[in-house]
C-alpha cells in the first residue's frame, strides 16, 4: 500500500478511538475493520503520538516536522514511524485519506 507524505490522513468514521488511562484504544465500529470483529487495538507510545496529530489539517510531512520538533529523533526515524503506522492502519481501514 502506497502511503504519501503529502496526503492528509484522518481516523476512519468506521472506528472509534478512545483514550482510557493513557492508552489509545481503537474500537472497530463496522464490519470488516481490523482483522476480526471482536478485536480491539491499542497503539504503542510511538503510534499514539502520531495518531494524536491526525487532525485533518496536516499532511504526514507536516506531522513529521512537528514530531521532529517534539522528540529528539532524526527526521528519517520519525518519517519511517509515521509511514509505518499509517500503512498499518490503512491496511486495516482505520485511517483514510481526505482530499483538500
Amino acid at each position, binding site marked *: 500500500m502506497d502511503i504519501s507524505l503529502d496526503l492528509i490522513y484522518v481516523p476512519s468514521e468506521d472506528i472509534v478511538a478512545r483514550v482510557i488511562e493513557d492508552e489509545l484504544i481503537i474500537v472497530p465500529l463496522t464490519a470488516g475493520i481490523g482483522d476480526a470483529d471482536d478485536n480491539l487495538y491499542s*497503539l504503542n507510545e510511538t503510534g499514539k503520538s502520531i495518531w494524536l496529530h491526525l487532525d485533518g489539517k496536516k499532511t504526514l510531512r507536516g506531522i513529521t516536522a512537528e514530531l521532529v520538533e517534539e522528540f529528539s529523533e532524526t527526521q528519517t526515524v520519525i518519517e519511517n514511524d509515521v509511514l509505518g503506522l499509517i500503512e498499518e492502519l490503512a491496511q486495516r481501514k482505520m485511517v483514510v485519506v481526505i482530499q483538500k
Partner: protein
Amino acid sequence: MSYAIKLKPHELNLWRTKKPVLGLIDIELTERCNNNCMHCCINQPEDDTDILNREMSTEFVKKILIDAASLGCLTVRFTGGEPLLRSDFAELYFFTRRIGMQVMLLTNARLITSDIVQLLVKFPPGHTVEVSVYGMKPESYNLVAGHQDAFDEFKQGIDLLLQYQVPFIVKSPKLHVLKGEQDAFEAWAATIPSMLSKPGYSMNFDLRSRRDNPDKNAHIEKIRATPDETVAQLVRNPSYLKDMVQFCSRFMGVSGDKLFNCGAGLETCIDAYGHAQLCLSLRKKDTVVDLHEVSLKKALEEIFPTMRELKATNPDYLRRCAQCFLSGLCDQCPAKSWMEYGTLDTPVEYQCDVAHAKARHFGLIKENEKAWEVENWKERLKHFEAIHG
C-alpha cells in the same frame, strides 16, 4: 515492527499503568420477558404497562452509557428480561457502539428479526451473542418457556443468526423436563460455527431476586438440581477435576466475617429502573444506588467500596460460613442469602449442601462431616492437589 497491538476484549494486558474504574457494565434493559420460564428469577409479563412505564427512558440509558464510557468501560452486557422487548433496542445498541463500547447481548432469540440481525452484521457487537435454549423440541421448549409459540419464534431467530453468520453461543438450563435432550442439544450446538466449546448449563437456579413470588420460589426449589445431580453434571466435563485442582489452590480457604469475597461492586449492574447494584442478583434496597440521584462514578468509587467492607453479624454465619474452608466451592454470597432469606448473611442451606457434595466427591470431607469443623483443612487441600494436580 507493529504499532497497533491487537487485543481481545478480555485480555488483561491492555492496561500498562492503571486500570480504568469500570471495565464492564451490565444493563438490565427490562425485567419483562416474552417467555415465562419455570426457573426464572426475574421475569415479568411482557405486556405489563406499569412495569414498562417505570423502566429507564432511552435518554437515561444513554446517559448511563456515556457515564460508563467516561469511566473507561469498554463492554456493555445487555440483559433482562428479554432486552429485545425494548422498542428502542436498536437505537441503544447503535449508540453504545458509536461511543466506542462493545456489546454482549443475552437473549432468547425469539425477537431476532432481519432488521436486528442486519444491525448486528453491519455493526458487529464485538462479543458473541448468548442465546438461552429451553429445549430441542416444540413441546418441551414451550413447556419450559411457558409460551405456546416460543419454539417456532426461537427457531426463526436462530435461523436468521446462522443465515447472516452472526457469531453466537448457546446455553441451557438443566431441567428434568429436558432430560433426554441433552445429547441432541450438544450435538446441535457442535454444529454452530461460533461454538468453540460445549454449551454451558445452569442448574442451581436462584430464587426470585425481587423476592416477589413465593409460589414460583417453591417451584424453583423443586426443579433446581440436587447436590448429587450437580456433581453428576459437573463431572461430565472431562477437565472438571483438573480445573478444580487449580481453582482450589487459588481460592479455597477460610473467608472470615467479610461478606463480599467476590467481585460484587468492583463492576456494577444497572437494573431496569436505573439503580446501580453491586451485582446482578443483589437487589436489597439498602445496597442499591439510585442513579437518578447519585452518579455512577460516586457509586463505584465511594459507595460500593464501603459496602464491600460489610461484615457478617449473624451468629450462624459466623459459626459456619466464616469458618468454612469450602469458600471456593460454595456459591454462598450476600446475593444468594438475599434471594433465599432476605438478609445478607444467612447461610444458604442449598448452597451449603451443594458445596459439601462437591467436597465429598473430591474426598475433601467425609460423609456427615461439616467443613467448618475440619481443623486440618490445609493438609487435606495439599493432599488433594498432590493426588490430582
